[in-house]
């Protein structure tokens, strides 16, 4: 097993499944890029139940519920619809997140999945916003997964126009004050999406825009909202809510209508500041917390040269020599950590898969992370120090011990480590595992070791 194969699996992938490092072959870079040929997988329900619903259907359900609730409110003694509704929603959200977790444990295309996680976090929508709970999973399925090897422009448009983003960043209520709807209902702008689009999704906080630009972009995006009938996508443009007249954003005049918003997003997607912002984040994720300037520059140049081609961006990272430096790498995030653990022990091995995955999800949450539940639009942090805090680390070790307790006594733990870590397994860890009292303890030591905590 080559060192490069092991680095490919652990740094760019999600950690090794049994036999995975051996299957990489002599060309680890080609193994990684080959995973993008057929795009990302879609999570499938773990419980064998009905398929996950498209965004448009979910929007029509949400809006139907809201209408029902308004009716109920008018009655004298309403039940507690909020609690009941969110109980159902919470279950649906968990069901989708369990499928997503399990996909990470088993996927044969772990690099594609890493990219999904990266972009999903870049375009954060979070179930912390109760209205968005219904839609965050659909967001990833519909706006992120199909676009990881496409263009940034397409992903930005798909993300911004997804009902989950419209809800999460309040654009569904963003109404032009001088539009017909604004004048009648005395409603006005909501700057949330306009601001975050530039600060987080495209230009970056120092990317060259002012408060006036935030307002301008908010105006440009007025009328973009949820489709009141659900429709196929759940998104709809309402001309009566759109702020009339010319709007100047960063020196360029946009002359109204839905097309103005699309053009503004395209311009932002191709802005050099966006290239710089994305290159920096990509390097931090795949290379190091503090990546070399020349690595960032190469990614930035690739983004500018290809007009934001995301496959080319991924390839540039994969071809960067700095990304192949072995040795103490980034701390795995809790999602990456529990996923790598379940991969190395070869999950599933019988039992109630749904229950097992939900238990891992609870543990991941305790370590500080949960899929599609970031505390803010900034998403989950992507640097080691966010995850190495004392309480979080102790939680990891305690969980590793718990997982170890499930390892059958006839397992050759050192063989599991050799197969799953290859040359990355340190001599100290191997020796400690050999002297452990049980295979379970040995696996717990492996999962606690620095080379496993990091990628």
């Amino acid at each position: 097993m080559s060192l490069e194969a092991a680095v490919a699996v652990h740094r760019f992938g999600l950690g090794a499944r049994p036999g995975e490092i051996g299957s990489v072959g002599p060309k680890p870079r080609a193994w990684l890029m080959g995973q993008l040929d057929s795009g990302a997988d879609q999570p499938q329900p773990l419980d064998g139940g009905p398929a996950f619903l498209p965004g448009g259907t979910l929007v029509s359900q949400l809006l139907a519920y809201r209408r029902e609730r308004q009716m109920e409110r008018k009655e004298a003694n309403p039940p507690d619809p909020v609690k009941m509704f969110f109980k159902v929603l919470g279950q649906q959200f968990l069901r989708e997140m369990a499928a997503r977790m399990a996909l990470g444990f088993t996927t044969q295309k772990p690099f594609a999945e890493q990219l999904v996680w990266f972009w999903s976090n870049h375009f954060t929508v979070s179930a912390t916003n109760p209205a968005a709970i219904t839609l965050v999973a659909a967001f990833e399925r519909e706006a992120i997964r199909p676009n990881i090897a496409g263009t940034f422009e397409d992903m930005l448009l798909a993300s911004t126009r997804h009902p989950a983003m419209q809800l999460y960043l309040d654009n569904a209520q963003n109404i032009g004050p001088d539009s017909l709807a604004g004048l009648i209902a005395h409603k006005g702008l909501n700057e949330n999406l306009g601001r975050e689009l530039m600060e987080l999704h495209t230009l970056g906080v120092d990317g060259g825009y002012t408060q006036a630009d935030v307002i301008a972009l908010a105006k440009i995006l007025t009328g973009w909202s949820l489709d009141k009938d659900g429709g196929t996508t759940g998104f709809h443009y309402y001309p009566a809510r759109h702020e009339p007249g010319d709007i100047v954003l960063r020196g360029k005049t946009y002359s109204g209508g839905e097309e103005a918003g699309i053009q503004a997003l395209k311009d932002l997607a191709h802005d050099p500041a966006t290239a710089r912002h994305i290159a920096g984040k990509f390097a931090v994720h795949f290379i190091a917390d503090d990546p070399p300037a020349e690595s960032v520059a190469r990614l930035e140049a690739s983004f500018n040269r290809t007009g934001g081609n995301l496959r080319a961006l991924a390839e540039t990272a994969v071809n960067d020599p700095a990304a192949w430096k072995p040795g103490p790498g980034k701390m795995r995030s809790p999602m990456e950590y529990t996923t790598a653990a379940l991969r190395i022990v070869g999950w599933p091995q019988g039992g109630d898969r749904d229950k097992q995955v939900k238990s891992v999800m609870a543990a991941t949450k305790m370590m500080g992370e949960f899929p599609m539940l970031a505390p803010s639009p900034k998403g989950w942090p992507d640097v080691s120090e966010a995850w190495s805090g004392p309480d979080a680390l102790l939680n990891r070790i305690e969980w590793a011990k718990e997982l170890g307790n499930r390892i059958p006594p006839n397992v050759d733990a050192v063989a599991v480590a050799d197969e799953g870590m290859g040359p990355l397994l340190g001599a100290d860890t191997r020796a400690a595992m050999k002297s452990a009292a049980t295979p379970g303890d040995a696996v717990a030591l492996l999962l606690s070791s620095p080379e496993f905590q990091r990628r």
Partner: protein
Amino acid sequence: MMLDRRSILKTALAAGAASVWDAPIRFAFANVPGDRRFVVVILRGALDGLAAVPPHGDPDYQSVRGKLALDTTGTNALHDLDGQFGLHPSLLNMKGMWDAKELIVFHNIASPYRDRSHFDGQAMLESGGESHALGDGWLNRALKPMGLADGDGALAIAASPPLMLEGSAKVSSWLPAVMPEPDLAFLKRVSALYAKDPVLRASLAQAIDTEAKADAAMDDKPKTAQQMAQRVGAYGDLTPLFAGAGRLLARDDGPRVAVLDASGWDTHVNEGAGDGQLARRLRTLDAGLDAMKSALGPAWKKTAVVMATEFGRTVAPNGGGGTDHGTAGAAFLFGGAVAGGKVEAEWVGLKPSVLKDGRDQPPRTDLRAVFKGVLADHMGMARRDLDNTVFPDSGGVAAMGPLFAA
């Protein structure tokens, strides 16, 4: 006999035995402003200020609040403070603090946030921004000037620090463990594996140290992880968290700043008045605060706690027996160090004409004025730092005072 980690630690500490787990005192106090403690309790979800602090002397109170109005007599009567304002009947221990002149109540108070999104409201409350939320927390920015930026001085009672404590200054975090713990021997072996990884080594050592300090708070530890998860947390029982925080803060070598979360205030439906949903949640909070006070022991006299929420709720009940997102509300400052026994409120009444947008309590006092007052007078921070670094562009918001005895 299989001893768990905490039993072993307890024995070692009691015997005064020096072991690798009996970590050396690592807290240096050269720059710490005396031995004062500052705690922020974030009430996430928007507390109904008119329920927690009913303005029962206002002529319009009973009529605008309708069935949410609290009784002034009977079994569920509110606690009168000054004839004008009261405390919710559930806040018995807080009433005790009022009587001891250790509590100041604020009303018609709000952060600079003027919209009605929980997330944005909390981000503004925690980041201390003037017009929009910032990427790091105001309390984190205050740590360096306070000399508490070494990671041991500030503690989040959470798995990872909330935005208020997030930023470039190092902070620590602690939660009661929710899993059966691995044995000491195992942790020793893991620690040996970290010999060449200074970050993980230091982090594990600190975790064990913090756990040891919290040991005493663990006496009533639930038996299983599930029991614990059901019982404890921002939405559940607050007492283990608040007592744990109090015990850590009480120690001479403990943190000086802490942030706690309590959720469950988003009472859109069936809020209840003297009894009901909100009354139960306030009782839980009141018990938690009392547990923290007890755990602090003599250090209570050196403690100031600010308790605030992201925004208030509508003055009038909605159709579902609850209240919707509003603007201004109530906030609290208490602790043994506080010169309390007063209500600070620019009260303008409850008539629709004085309400913001005809529905919300009008914001007449900026919450940052309270935070600044505590940081200045209690934690000894310079005005320059407060106006520019901690709360950028807040020169126009003067620190409130006097909040403490001179």
